[in-house]
């Protein structure tokens, strides 16, 4: 819509530059405005996280201890890696319900290759990753070329993946993975858990892709208006398919972490993850309508969920009530987001 006031002021301003804009802003304040701008973009969720941290550090003497913070990161790393993929899917206006089932399937598939086919564990891991990407490819093809709604397509693959997961080992758990594997994933260089570093690296790489590379930037255009994106010559179908593949592959990576942390692969792994993954993305400011969302936002959403669950445990809140709190936080995040701040990396 045209804003009459805006137009009037523009047409009456004799200066060719009506307002200082970052486009032609001088270099002196660039660093400052960038940091500020980015913080402002994250807005509500970040303020909520800071508030939560302050509150918990006052309420519990254990909260700010290094060991506790390290625990939080370890606990959320698998959800966090899946949420990175889910952010991309939601960004293009899709949804991936199969992500937790894919985690379980790739875990059991890798474990089965290792224990029953006697492939080396490293190779089994890679094949599990490929399996995750393959299911993502199926999701992508169904939703783009097949024109099946993402909700329905991934509901179907979720069901199928869950079935296969149980079928592979007849519902049994597999143990006895090489010791280098869980040692590696439980490393803590400089006191920071390796999985936390992996998590941050995944977010940085994807965030960088979304911000600086055409393939990533196109996701905003596609999620914002698919027809405009198509008419602009962007590879809409391939972009969407690729995003589902990334989500599937990342679910497999999260599966590695789960195996390492439990030292076993159980077909029941990932139960209850799906809703947490979506919650993290939504709390992080992404819109299920597509076109809005950032990796920074999702990361903050992840920390909110992680800190919240950890804090509630420290405060001895009944664990059954924790999902209630999560529900309230989701609503609070979405309602505060509607207040005006649209998280959006430019």
């Amino acid at each position: 819509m045209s804003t009459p006031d805006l137009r009037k002021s523009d047409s009456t301003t004799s200066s060719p530059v009506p307002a200082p804009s970052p486009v032609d802003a001088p270099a002196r304040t660039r660093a400052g405005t960038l940091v500020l701008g980015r913080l402002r973009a994250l807005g509500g969720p970040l303020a909520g996280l800071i508030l939560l941290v302050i509150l918990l550090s006052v309420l519990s003497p254990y909260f700010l201890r290094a060991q506790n913070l390290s625990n939080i990161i370890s606990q959320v790393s698998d959800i966090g890696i899946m949420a990175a993929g889910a952010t991309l899917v939601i960004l293009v206006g899709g949804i991936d319900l199969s992500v937790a089932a894919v985690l379980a399937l790739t875990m059991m598939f890798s474990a089965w290759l290792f224990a029953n086919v006697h492939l080396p564990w490293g190779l089994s891991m890679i094949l599990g990753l490929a399996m995750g990407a393959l299911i993502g490819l199926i999701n992508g093809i169904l939703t783009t070329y097949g024109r099946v709604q993402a909700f329905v397509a991934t509901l179907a693959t979720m069901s199928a993946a869950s079935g296969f997961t149980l079928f592979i080992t007849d519902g049994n758990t597999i143990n006895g993975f090489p010791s280098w594997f869980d040692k590696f994933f439980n490393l803590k260089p400089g006191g920071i858990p390796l999985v936390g570093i992996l998590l941050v690296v995944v977010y940085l790489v994807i965030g960088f892709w979304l911000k600086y590379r055409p393939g990533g930037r196109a996701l905003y255009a596609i999620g914002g208006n698919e027809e405009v994106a198509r008419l602009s010559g962007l590879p809409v179908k391939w972009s969407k398919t690729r995003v589902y593949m990334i989500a599937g592959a990342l679910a497999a990576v999260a599966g590695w972490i789960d195996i390492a942390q439990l030292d076993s692969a159980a077909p029941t792994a990932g139960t209850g993850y799906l809703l947490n993954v979506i919650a993290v993305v939504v709390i992080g400011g992404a819109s299920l309508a597509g076109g809005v969302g950032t990796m920074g936002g999702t990361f903050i959403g992840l920390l909110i969920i992680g800190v919240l669950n950890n804090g509630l445990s420290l405060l001895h809140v009944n664990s059954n009530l924790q999902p209630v709190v999560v529900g309230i936080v989701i609503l609070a995040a979405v309602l505060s987001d509607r207040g005006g701040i649209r998280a959006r990396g430019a």
Partner: protein
Amino acid sequence: MADLGSTAGRALVCSDVTKDYAGIVVLRGVSFDVPAGGVVGLIGENGAGKSTLCNIIAGTVPPSSGTMTLDGETYVPSNPHDALTQGVALIHQEIRMVPSLTVAENIFLGRLPMKGGRVDRRRMNDEAGDVLRGLGIGLDPRRQVVGLSMASQQSIEIAKAISRRPRYVIFDEPSASLTQHETDRVLEQIGRMRSTGVGVIYISHRLDEVQAVCTKIVCLRDGNLVRSWDGDPAVAGGVARVPSGELVSAMVGRDFTFEHHAPAAHTEDVVLQVQGLGRKGAFADVNFTVSRGEILGIAGLVGAGRTEVVRTIAGADRADTGTITLHGAPLTVRRPADAIRAGIVMVPEDRKGQGLNLGLTSAENVVGPWEADMARTAPLITRRMVGRTAAKARQDFDIRGRMDGPVVRLSGGNQQKVLLAKWLVKEPQVLILDEPTRGVDVGAKMAIYEIIRSAAARGVAVIVVSSELEEVLGLSHRVLVMSNGRQRGILPRAQADARTVMELAVPVGSRV
């Protein structure tokens, strides 16, 4: 059908109806009346105010000033439902059916007859059957709407309106999507309604229909009622003897305000050649060439297939037949990306739905199609690179407003300039513009004409589709006229006047 008894003296009367939107007058003091049992044909060019007038009568929008009376009583409909209750029904151009419901259910949607807390299906089907038979429609009321032809669905719309027993019915271009045979049936139904004392307003671009069915014709132009012809109110086609040429003159005969300076001469170096292009159900056998520096206008009425033709060339839709040749080499265009890569770009008519991504900034919209190209020379697309391109676009196209702010915050004219910039920051071979000045103010309009002319002067082959005749005539070297999905001719600038173009554009006599 209800017999409304004596028609004597009953009429729907509009007196001095005016409508303006934020100071822009779209209807100026229109007065006319629809006698009971009469059919008034409403004609005029696109944008003449026909739809606005109907929307006012049907209660969709209130008039800014003026009064209406219905059979002698003051008539102030507060909304379409209120209008319906008072006896005025509007039959929309586009069909709004619930395909999964039955014919009868659609007819009685929202007011299903009830008995004992349940839908009285027998009564509903009986009454629907009566209405359908009364209109000569042989449809089973218990059948699902899904799978019925457009004409049948149109008939159900009519039945739906009739079942409310209106005293006056407005048809907004009912024949736009119908074949000749189907249209004849609609006209026949109008005749039956007339005979029971219903007053009808009939809007159509097809003058032959208007002449055949109407007892009176009213012509709107630029929001003014410019002329009306009275026939015998008792005879359908009472105005049949009014010559089509006279109607066309009344529709277009304005003083041209468009600046008529001839465009710069163009070369004979053919850039784009289209041969035998066709798409099923949209258009067929379109042939033309556009040379370097030439502006080819495409004129025609709404629904003539103009947009469909250019969309196909730009890869938005796929052609079923024909070839597209660029610089003498055949070009396969399956998707927009193919056309863009070859240098054929299109500014679509629907700026908000197809042109701009409203969630993004102006700068992001401008660079959107070119990011992959940019990434080939510099691996990272930085805010600075985007900003540089945007700043240049802002200067070149005189975009007033921030490029790094949401594009929605700009005025319509500036949004349109952003859209033009998006497709001109990289010089195209062929620039297609579909309604390039829709919804922009006069100042921006002139600026956009200048952008188009200078693109042509630089050697771009330009195609302009516009419903504004003066725009097409003022800009183009040649004008291609379409009607009913067919190319009716290409007029050189010297021969392209409003009258000649309209005569080709208006389907007169039998249809192709």
